């Protein structure tokens, strides 16, 4: 790129050729007023607010769309430029309702701000103003379309970032309206970003509506506790209550975006279901207790039970400090029974791994990959913003290949895909492995010996052999799969043969952090040797005498909720540490109210190994306490050494040292060795395919009323191929009785011809399907 010399407002600047005047001005810190321009969206040049004077040009030019040329002289504040800008502002205001006093955008509105500088104090427009009917965009976005200035940012966002055009500009001239298709709602998992993009109050947050003014809110930084990206948040607080959540820009993580889950889950913090005082079950009745009484009871009970009969389970959505103290407590007691991988079913890699599994690359690299293979992932719903980055790669001519047990709309071009029953997933990978070895004339790895090459495998191999940047990723479904070890090992071989980076898309906010601080059996913090113990599945397959549950809602968070609940119900002592009461009222003996992420300091380590610490943004509700403090006191009461931390930073230091980023990076390693792969078995009968719905992943999301009203939160159904529906004598939209081991359930049948015809797809993690067995494995279906 050549460097050009230009002049803006008398300042001589060196800029890259290809830049626009807006780019050059931004880089030089010169503000040019604008509405439709947004650095992440295509150039529309339709608002005309950024008109500037360019010497020798016959008319004012839009700074956002005008490329710089050598010797160009630009005036952004000359009388000529200001006149053009004031002209545009007058036009924008003539039909704008100017209802700022009752508008949620008031105080943070670009139009309001710029009108101060460029608008008149009275209007020359005497006619009746335009009124535009409201649109129903669903439970998350409120509309006041009369305020719309038609900048088209929301439309471009859908087309370019969310990957689906859910809003369009209908009509012509004055009658142009932003509207959804045929009274559809906006259903994208990234939809909330249009609220931020809208420069006026046309699109605002429905849950936040009329609840506070922007100037009343304190803005506090935080980190999202949901997916493994660790989106950076700006939490807005009023009167010690979280009022809303907005993105905090971080180009390396979430850019300026936020998934709806990260944005709207805060509603789940303020529900009546919050546990606010420690509670004890006394003769079958729940009574409130003091912290001291509750913790003493827990300590005494735990002392009385042999350590190997205690199981400690946490969700991977809890901060690293808590996970660290939980494992320290268990190991202090002499037990290695600690785990956070509640939805995993194959733990065979525990003695074959050489470090913690991670993305294998920085998140930013995902936007510029040329060749990709994603195995077992519902990308959009599991990792909304990482899916956006992969879409960006695809838009830049990257090729995405998919191997999965179910097909969900990716909203981008897929180069090759293979949708097979879960039992055939490993074989499909072995096929690609063999095709690659043959293509590149490399020795075939022994574990792929049974691989069968067909056209799809060849197409994927061809794709993965080319391009400059390549990656193989394993998704949530792969990690929950009952042959995860084999899938991981085969994917690793594919990556090696392709010369590709190999990564695991972490399931949850702290999936990497939990392993790094040693919350798995047999492996202490940063991989230090530790006493062996039971993994999550072993702890839940057969009852232990006591369970210590950290943030776990066992009926929803586990791979096999039926066997998990059987074991927990059979235990003699169950301690639940949770911000919520929930179903634990039925099975716990002690309930300890711990702080959700907004009420405690802590750390999430995202899937690229980024250590992101955050502070509390509000005070704990009622008697709620940060879990790290609770565990520290419990450690003291149990007489264990090393529980003398002053603050969460102390805990983190204890866990991963003074240089957390370096230590974690050094620990991360996706390499596994010594995995044997069984030849594929032909599977008789039907198999279940399960995913965790996007708004059922963790306890906070489950309690967000607005998210639960979205289309992504509709009741689970049994999805089947039409051939299977016919074969079983079922009818579409009729009822089906599904059965796994001893559990049966009646669900609605939904046709899904993208599924293999030997599979029934039923979501897990939902109260309606909690009565069903494991996420994968045999299932029967018959008419009711």
């Amino acid at each position, binding site marked *: 790129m050549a460097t050009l010399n230009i002049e803006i407002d008398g300042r001589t600047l060196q800029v890259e050729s290809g830049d626009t005047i807006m780019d050059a001005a931004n880089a030089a810190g010169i503000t040019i007023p604008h509405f439709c321009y947004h650095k992440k969206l295509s*150039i*529309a*040049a*339709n*608002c*005309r*607010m950024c*008109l500037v004077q360019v010497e020798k040009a*016959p*008319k*004012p030019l*839009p700074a956002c*769309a005008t*490329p710089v040329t050598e010797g160009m002289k630009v005036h952004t504040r000359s009388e000529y430029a200001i006149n*053009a800008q004031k*002209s*545009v502002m*007058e*036009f*924008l205001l*003539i*039909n704008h309702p100017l209802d700022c006093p009752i508008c949620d955008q008031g105080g943070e509105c670009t139009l309001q701000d710029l009108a101060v500088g460029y608008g008149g104090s009275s209007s*020359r*427009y005497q*006619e009746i103003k335009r009124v535009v009917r409201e649109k129903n965009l669903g439970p998350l976005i409120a509309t006041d379309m009369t305020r719309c*200035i*038609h900048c088209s940012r929301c439309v471009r966002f859908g087309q370019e970032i969310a990957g689906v055009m859910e809003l369009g*500009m209908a*009509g*012509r*001239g*004055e*009658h*142009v309206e932003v509207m959804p298709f045929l009274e559809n709602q906006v259903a994208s998992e990234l939809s909330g970003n249009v609220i931020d993009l809208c420069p006026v109050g046309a699109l605002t947050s429905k849950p936040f509506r009329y609840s506070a003014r922007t100037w009343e809110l304190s803005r506090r930084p935080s980190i999202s506790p949901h997916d493994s990206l660790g989106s950076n948040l700006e939490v807005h607080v009023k009167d010690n209550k979280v009022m809303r959540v907005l993105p905090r820009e971080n180009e390396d993580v979430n850019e300026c975006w936020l998934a709806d889950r990260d944005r709207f889950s805060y509603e789940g913090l303020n529900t009546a279901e919050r546990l606010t005082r420690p509670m004890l079950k006394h003769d079958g009745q729940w009574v409130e207790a003091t912290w001291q009484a509750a913790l003493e009871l827990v300590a005494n009970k735990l002392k009385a039970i042999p350590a190997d009969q205690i199981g400690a389970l946490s969700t991977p959505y809890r901060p690293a400090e808590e996970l660290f103290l939980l494992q320290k407590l268990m190991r202090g007691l002499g037990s290695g029974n600690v785990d956070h991988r509640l939805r995993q079913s194959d733990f065979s890699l525990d003695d074959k791994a050489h470090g913690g599994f991670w993305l294998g690359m920085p998140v930013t690299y995902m936007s510029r990959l040329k060749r990709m293979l994603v195995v077992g992932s519902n990308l959009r719903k599991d990792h909304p913003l990482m899916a956006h980055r992969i879409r960006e790669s695809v838009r830049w001519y990257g090729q995405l290949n998919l191997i999965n047990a179910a097909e969900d709309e990716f909203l981008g071009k897929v180069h090759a895909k293979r949708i097979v029953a879960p039992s055939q997933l490993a074989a499909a990978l072995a096929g690609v492995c063999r095709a690659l070895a043959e293509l590149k004339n490399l020795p075939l790895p022994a574990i792929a010996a049974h691989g069968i090459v067909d056209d799809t495998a060849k197409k994927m191999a061809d794709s993965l052999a080319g391009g400059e940047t390549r990656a193989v990723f394993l998704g949530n479904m792969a990690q929950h799969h009952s042959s995860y070890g084999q899938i991981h090992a085969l994917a690793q071989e594919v990556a090696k043969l392709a010369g590709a980076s190999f990564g695991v898309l972490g399931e949850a906010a702290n999936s990497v952090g939990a392993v790094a601080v040693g919350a798995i059996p047999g492996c202490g913090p940063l991989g230090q040797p530790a006493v062996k113990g039971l993994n999550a599945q072993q702890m839940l397959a057969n009852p232990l005498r006591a369970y210590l549950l950290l943030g776990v809602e066992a009926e929803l968070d586990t791979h096999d909720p039926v066997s998990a609940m059987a074991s927990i119900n059979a235990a003699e002592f169950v301690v639940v540490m949770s911000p919520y009461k929930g179903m634990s009222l039925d099975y716990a003996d002690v309930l300890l109210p711990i702080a959700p992420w907004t009420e405690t300091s802590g750390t999430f380590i995202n899937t690229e190994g980024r250590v992101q610490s955050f502070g509390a943004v509000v005070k704990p509700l009622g008697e709620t306490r940060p879990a790290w403090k609770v565990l520290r006191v419990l450690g003291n009461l149990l007489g264990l050494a090393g529980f003398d931390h002053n603050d969460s930073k102390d805990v983190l230091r204890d866990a991963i040292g003074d240089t957390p980023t370096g230590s974690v990076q050094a620990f991360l390693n996706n390499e596994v060795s010594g995995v044997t792969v069984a030849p594929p078995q032909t599977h008789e009968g039907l198999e279940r395919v399960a995913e965790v719905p996007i708004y059922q992943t963790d306890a906070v999301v489950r309690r967000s009323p607005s998210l639960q009203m979205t289309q992504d939160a509709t009741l689970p159904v049994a999805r089947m191929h039409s051939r299977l529906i016919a074969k079983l004598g079922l009818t579409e939209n009729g009822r089906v009785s599904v059965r796994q081991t001893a559990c049966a359930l009646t669900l609605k049948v939904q046709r899904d011809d993208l599924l293999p015809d030997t599979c029934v797809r039923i979501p897990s993690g939902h109260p309606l399907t909690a009565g069903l067995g494991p996420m994968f494995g045999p299932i029967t279906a018959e008419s009711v």
Partner: protein
Amino acid sequence: MSLLAPTPQVCSWTQALDNPGSLATYVANGGYQALRRVITEQVSGDDIIAELKTSALRGRGGAGFPTGLKWSFMPRAFAGDKYIVCNSDEGEPGTFKDRDILRYNPHQLIEGMAIAGYVLGARVGYNYIHGEIFDCYQIFEAALKEARDAGYLGDKLFGTDFCFQLHAHAGYGAYICGEETALLESLEGKKGQPRFKPPFPASFGLYGKPTTINNTETLASVPWIMQHGGQAFLELGKPNNGGSKLFSVSGHVNKPGNFEVPLGTPFAKLLEMAGGVRSGHKLKAVIPGGSSAPVLPADIMMDCTMDFDSVAKAGSMLGSGAVIVMDETVCMVRALERLSYFYFEESCGQCTPCREGTGWMYRIIHRIEHGQGKPEDIELLNSVAGRIGGHTICALGDAAAMPVQSFLKHFGHEFEHHVEHKRCMDGTEQ
């Protein structure tokens, strides 16, 4: 008449013949000879462009841009797909010339587009035809079939390696789709809205590929120039204004219609050809180049010759050659009200000044026309027009502003009269 003789009827010569639009008539009178020669003799594109530059052929759609220069912008060496697009989206009020070419001489347009395809390296062309002249679209489709069947379109023309496919596309009648980039958007199946330029179509046009867009009459003139040479075409007209041009004369004349006359013909002569101002009345004003062109009062107009430079010098535009004649009975306020309603209705709504301003202007004029105007409205109207012009993505904003500004400039007293007396001036009620 035929294409074999260098008559001034460049595009309209077939109208004197029987079966004017048929392939047989066209071929019998020298049609497709230029195409055959250019292709079989492998005439170089540079030579053809040079010939066009000599001819001083200027775009007949309204802007009057030199065609040879436009063609030279095309990256002809670019190996990928390129397109030639004909703009038959004739929607400007007062303009009705291209439809006569489609009706009576479609093959000359087809030949012109094929030559353009040959020069520019485009293997595919599109003719985008205005939605409100669907009969012309049907006629053109029939002509395309004739040309394909006769081997003038398709693969390996005249036994050479040159292939050219041509397709007709019926628009839906939106005025804005006559703007070339809005036309491309519409052709791509999207909402017809202009694109911001740069990039220009020559580098990023239809489907993002290099594209040249010319008016129907422009492309239809190409075979004539190939047949008789650029110099002959130039000599038809006057320097910098080569050839003849179709003028659509409408309004208060005795014999409205299309008249093809050499550029540089005095306006008085054109008016005479159209039968003069209707009997018993006298000329008041003329819009010389379609509704977007500034209006000119009779005395200025009568001194003009009909060519790009003369009309521009007089303060208006030759535009598409749509001459709207108004006699002394016309109320200029009412005339402008009607015109501004058109732009209000046809604004695409994409960019702010035009979306918001065209409706505002119409409402002010409507108010004045209906006796509710205020003295300050005239200045307001002028100011709003000034705030639209030059501030929009495409020329529609200017097109909406120019009539307003010119009506106020030349006939401001009528507006003042309306405001003051709340009715038309005596003798102007139309």
